[in-house]
């Protein structure tokens, strides 16, 4: 199962050639995908040779093979983590039984919905990021952007494989629709809100990869627990790649902060205007971007009380983050969870059945993980001696989904009137002026080893290559 047949049009470790019908269906989908990549993939990049990693096997020693390749020639393939044959369902009503190798009829609609929702985010982010290559602050960063793009493309392939293989005609139609929806398109938008937002500049890109790809990580972790074994194995392998995306976000913001603090120390100022005049991004602007991306991303976890979430868990379709490491009964029928609600103009916690609150549980796991990384950013600021600390806004800040949607609240958690919100929101969320300023800094740097003024170089290169390696050959 672990060998990949590169003579196939579609590299895979799922014995694709053993299922002619499926192979033909995917070979039919493949040109549509490549056309979509040409139209909606990274703008103007098709002739570049990019230093990319490609999975050559799912074993630890072979899944990261590096070489210069043209992105349209990237070998997008279908890779599932190895099957162990021993897996049992380990949560929900069917706990203890063998995992499913096929889709049980009663869960077909829900599983399809889960896979389509996950699959839709993959091409969406490529679309959101398609113009960023024109303003990359270095070859190193450009290469990282492209790496993320090709891997999101591979993740789309992974979901399309499941749709084709296990969902028949419905699945094929859904797979086609994944290439037809388009991020930000008013007629045929992507499914989830955050994936219709623009990613207009590199600060937004790093925030997106830090926060929104982390949502992806948590969703994939929850799906990697699934009783539907092909979904669990697919997402498990996707997680290995997802880690790189979060690295790009975390290190990207960290480098922006480092550069800003360096300039603040050189100029001995913490005045945002002076910092901006020196051509770097002031810390309050970074905080406002953070507030925006954080609040938009935590909406992705869905409503805080959701009967769907309860059904997905009870029926074993989607577990919790690190389900197998938790020591409770994995049924949760008698457990409760505290969620926030607004009553009489005040926030208070209410106790609700745990099963209905599983979206909130996953959201809280995500928040803990996000906050830890922000702590590491703060260490960069602290090391430079600047008395400023980034923080996450209140969970109810700027929410559009769930009980907290539409509540006017400050990042500190104070409930506001509409007029208070209108008077102050420019302090908390990026303003058009902020975005225009950040956009004004974005200029393409193409010389190996050179970096835009607003960002520090990374501490090390990719795959032990030097920082000034030619990661992208523009030809």
């Amino acid at each position, binding site marked *: 199962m672990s060998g990949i047949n590169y003579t196939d049009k579609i590299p895979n470790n799922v014995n694709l050639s053993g299922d002619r019908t499926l192979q033909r269906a995917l070979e039919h989908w493949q040109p549509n995908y490549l056309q979509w990549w040409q139209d909606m993939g990274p703008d103007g990049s098709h002739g570049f040779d990019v230093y990319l990693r490609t999975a050559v096997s799912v074993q630890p*020693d072979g*899944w*990261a093979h590096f070489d210069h390749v043209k992105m349209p020639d990237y070998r997008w393939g279908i890779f599932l983590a190895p099957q162990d044959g021993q897996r049992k369902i380990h949560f929900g009503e069917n706990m203890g039984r063998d995992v499913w190798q096929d889709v049980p009829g009663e869960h077909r609609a829900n599983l399809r919905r889960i896979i389509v929702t996950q699959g839709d985010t993959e091409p969406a982010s490529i679309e959101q990021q398609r113009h960023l290559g024109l303003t990359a602050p270095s070859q190193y960063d450009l290469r990282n952007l492209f790496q993320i793009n090709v891997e999101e493309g591979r993740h789309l392939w992974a979901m399309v494989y499941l749709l084709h293989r296990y969902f028949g005609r419905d699945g094929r139609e859904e797979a086609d629709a994944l290439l037809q929806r388009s991020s930000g398109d008013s007629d045929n938008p992507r499914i989830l809100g955050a994936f219709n937002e623009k990613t207009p500049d590199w600060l937004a890109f790093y925030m997106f990869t830090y926060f929104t790809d982390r949502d992806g990580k948590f969703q994939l972790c929850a799906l990697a627990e699934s009783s539907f074994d092909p979904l669990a194995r697919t997402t498990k392998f996707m997680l*290995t790649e997802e880690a790189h995306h*979060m*690295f790009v976000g975390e*290190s990207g913001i960290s480098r922006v902060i480092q550069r800003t603090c360096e300039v603040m120390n050189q100029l001995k100022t913490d005045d945002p205007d002076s910092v901006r005049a020196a051509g770097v991004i002031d810390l309050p602007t970074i905080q406002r971007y953070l507030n925006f991306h954080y609040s938009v991303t935590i909406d992705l976890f869905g409503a805080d009380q959701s009967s769907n979430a309860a059904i997905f868990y009870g029926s074993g379709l989607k577990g919790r983050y690190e389900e197998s490491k938790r020591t409770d009964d994995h049924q949760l029928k008698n457990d409760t969870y505290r969620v926030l609600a607004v009553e009489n103009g005040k926030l208070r916690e209410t106790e609700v059945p745990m099963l209905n609150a599983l979206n909130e549980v996953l959201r809280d796991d995500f928040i803990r993980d996000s906050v830890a990384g922000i702590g590491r950013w703060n*260490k960069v600021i602290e090391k430079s001696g600047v008395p400023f600390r980034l923080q996450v806004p209140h969970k109810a800040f700027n929410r559009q989904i769930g009980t907290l949607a539409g509540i006017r609240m400050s990042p500190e958690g104070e409930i506001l009137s509409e007029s208070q919100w209108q008077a102050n929101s420019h302090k908390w969320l990026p303003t058009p002026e902020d975005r225009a300023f950040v956009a004004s800094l974005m200029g393409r740097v193409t010389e190996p080893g050179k970096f835009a003024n607003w960002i520090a170089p990374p501490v090390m290169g*990719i795959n032990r290559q030097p920082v000034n390696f030619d990661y992208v050959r523009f030809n």
Partner: protein
Amino acid sequence: MNAPLPAEVLKQHLIDPEICIRCNTCEETCPIKAITHDSNNYVVDPDICNGCMACVPPCPTGAIDNWRLMVRAEAYGVQEQLGWEELPGEKALPETAAALPADDVPAATDLAAPAPFSAPGATVPPWSAAHPYVNLYTHKTPMTATVVGNYRVTGVDTESDIHHIVLDFGELPFPVLEGQSIGILPPGLDAQGRPHHARQYSLASPRDGERAGYNNLSLTVKRVTEDHAGAAAHGVCSNYLCDLAKNDKVQVIGPFGHTFLMPNHPRANLIMICTGTGSAPMRAMTERYRRRIDTGENGRLLLFFGARTERELPYFGPLMKLPRDFIDINLALSRETGQPKRYVQDLIRERAASVRELLADRNTCIYVCGLKGMEVGVLDALRDVTVQGGQDWSILHDALRREGRLHFETY
């Protein structure tokens, strides 16, 4: 401060907490569960990791690809690593240790290792060395010693504040040989609230005690007030030791070192080349020879000893009282007023005839101890002396290493 003479070298696998994004990929990948984490860090357990490298390609950040050559007994434990905010710097490892064939270092990690170097000294002890005890006391089970003496051995008017410190072990065993070292655990916590690392010091006393027949030993400790570059630096352990009073208790680990050991057979000659506190093991060996002077079995002792001035030479007074027919002393002073600068390598060249004569005798062992920078100078001088005598240095150098006759301890 003297460098350690460790028993075993470990290429310790570490994760850089400043680069790691805590994605869990390594822990997930590790086939033998050597990687663990808490809310602060992901860390590699040195007792489990076998360096299989499975975790290295999947790491998205490169944080996983950090290696430190460590004395195994000094390896950073899981708890210590969990508390890190950043990776500690490379610790200077004594050449005797770095040159050891570290069997536990997998070939694959050579990719990550600095360029290989050919070891300047031997990785085996002389054939007649006594068998050393090593690692009897560890971080988890340190020995408590009592300070029975602490006095300054350099002139009070010199910058160099070097102390001779005598530790007594009472009724408990702490068997040592000349050339071995011990570790001191300084009390208190560092800036991150964790216990300080152990510091290692070579013995300045012979195997039968600072005072013959007593269960004690001595150390030569220079009070560190500046780093190698001359910037102000407060040496945690050296200041602790230099300030100790009689009857204070000290936590000790070790002993360490199983190659930088003296020969025991009759007529064995020693060439000793040292600077500053690098004189400690030379004092130990010299004292061993002095105590058996009456046997008439001693070989020749040839000492090259470097310091800035006479008054900064530790043990200068007692050294000068030793009989000339017992030890041939050559002092190199680099900052004595009114005299040209002289280094130990200059003296080796001046004494070429004697050095050559001793080198030609297979009963001669050479010991070099001091700052790392002296290594190249000493090797060059030995080569020049040999070549002038019409001999091939590379052949002799090989023989000296193979036969355990050339030993370096530099820091």
